[in-house]
């Protein structure tokens, strides 16, 4: 990797902001994003006019966002409202900071899918396989889970462990949408959406917004909170079967492995150093796939790995301590990155992981990314 810029500990997150989560037809993407931005500005104490980099995701028009916030940055990037964009965006912001394209980057994500009745299937996601009735990312994750179960003997009760652990975390998070604890039997008795997946394997659809403010590690020391640095990043895409959206016949194993190894190597750490893992969880099976891809367990053994509450705070690998997409909020990876920052800062109250010096983010998706956050 001699031909790459070493991003280790070059960029830091100085401010984070999340809105309330729910259904807010009275406002829109811009209103929610502005709310998250104001919270993040307050979190770090920056003069907002210092922000000279703007990255927006799932926000209709970057320039209107800049107009609303009174920003005329030197660097702008806009990313589509796909779940896999958060890790990509944060790494691009780190690159912009490392190369001097911007000094302070605000990353903004907003989602109004709940109040606008987004379905993620059918007419709004038209594709080649519509005549056979294949649609929606939940269906392709169901396809992958059935295959994983057939190859490795993974059970739906093991899958339930993911939903149960994340709901437990949401019950400790006052801002989470779904806070009533569930059991494995609740999972097994919930209705099928696309079998073998059930309602409790599906992420929420809710409105809300997230903001992160990033700068270089040196400048980060001048702000209110202790900086959280980005110690390692990695990425690998997998587009071979992209016409079957949100699907990989091999569970994104190899790209996730590559993204993880790149991040670990850059940070100079290994799995055993990770205090908590924040994993993109649009559907519960992807959590199993990410664990195998990153090497927390051997291939095919993720079902056994998650048994017995292993993913809960206090368990062998606390994951998605805010409740994740399954129970906290569908902020498409962005809120999980904020949770990683809050864990490293030690701000998580009853759901705080002890000695959370290194927290990892991963997404096992067609754009695999991993980011390792550390105390600055």
């Amino acid at each position, binding site marked *: 990797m001699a031909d790459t810029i070493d991003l280790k500990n070059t960029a830091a997150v100085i401010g984070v902001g999340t809105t309330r989560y729910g259904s807010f037809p009275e406002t829109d993407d811009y209103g929610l994003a502005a709310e998250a931005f104001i919270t993040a500005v307050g979190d770090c104490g920056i003069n907002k006019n210092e922000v000279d980099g703007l990255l927006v995701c799932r926000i209709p028009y970057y320039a209107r966002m800049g107009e609303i916030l009174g920003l005329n940055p030197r660097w702008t990037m806009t990313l589509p409202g796909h779940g896999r964009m958060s890790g990509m965006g944060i790494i691009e912001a780190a690159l912009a900071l490392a190369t001097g394209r911007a000094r302070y980057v605000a990353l903004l994500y907003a989602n109004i899918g709940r109040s606008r009745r987004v379905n993620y299937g059918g007419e709004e996601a038209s594709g080649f396989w519509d005549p*056979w009735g294949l649609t929606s990312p939940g269906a392709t994750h169901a396809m992958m889970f*059935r295959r994983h179960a*057939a190859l490795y003997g993974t059970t739906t009760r093991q899958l339930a462990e993911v939903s149960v652990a994340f709901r437990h975390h949401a019950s400790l998070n006052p801002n989470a949408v779904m806070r009533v604890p569930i059991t494995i039997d609740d999972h097994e008795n919930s209705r099928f959406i*696309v*079998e073998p997946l059930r309602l409790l394997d599906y992420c929420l659809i809710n409105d809300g917004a997230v903001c992160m403010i990033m700068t270089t590690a040196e400048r980060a020391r001048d702000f209110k909170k202790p900086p959280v640095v980005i110690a390692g990043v990695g990425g690998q895409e997998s587009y071979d079967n992209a016409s079957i959206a949100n699907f990989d016949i091999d569970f994104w194993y190899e790209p996730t492995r590559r993204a993880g190894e790149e991040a670990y190597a850059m940070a100079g750490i290994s799995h055993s150093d990770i205090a908590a893992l924040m994993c993109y969880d649009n559907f519960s099976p992807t959590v199993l796939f990410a664990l195998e891809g990153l090497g927390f367990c051997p291939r095919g053994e993720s079902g056994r790995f998650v048994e017995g509450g292993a993913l809960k705070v206090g368990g062998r690998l606390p994951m998605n301590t805010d409740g994740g997409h399954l129970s906290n909020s569908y902020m498409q990876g962005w809120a999980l990155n904020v949770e990683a920052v809050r864990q490293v800062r030690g701000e998580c109250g009853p759901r705080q992981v002890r000695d959370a010096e290194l927290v990892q983010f991963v997404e096992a998706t067609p754009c695999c990314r991993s980011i390792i956050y550390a105390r600055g």
Partner: protein
Amino acid sequence: MPTASNYAKPLPRLTPLTQPFWDHAKAGRLAVQACGECGDLHFPPSPVCPKCLSAKQEWRTVSGRGTLMSWVVFHRAYWDGFKDELPYPVCLVELAEGPLLATNFGRGMTGEPKVGAPVHVVFEPATDAITLPQFVVD
């Protein structure tokens, strides 16, 4: 036989790129795109070959044999046209020649499908113009 105007489920979007697939299917043949330069077989069709980028693309009839990679059952209709069929299965077949297809189980399927089972193509007319290739376990 329904026509496009009284068929409730989604129909394919016919383009110069996809039309040959549906023409072959109507004639009872399963065909995938083949590169006229390097011979790579791929599907759905592409304007150029993903391996060598040649624009010389042809259609090749394949054996219609494959392996059941996975299958699911929809309990929710994302199109109104599927409401009457709930719950309906969708399966994933890897053709003996390589390409991966999302498809349905055809008439004559008996018993619980097993991932890894050998399957073969059957043809199910949907409208007077469109025939859907489907698969059944051997």
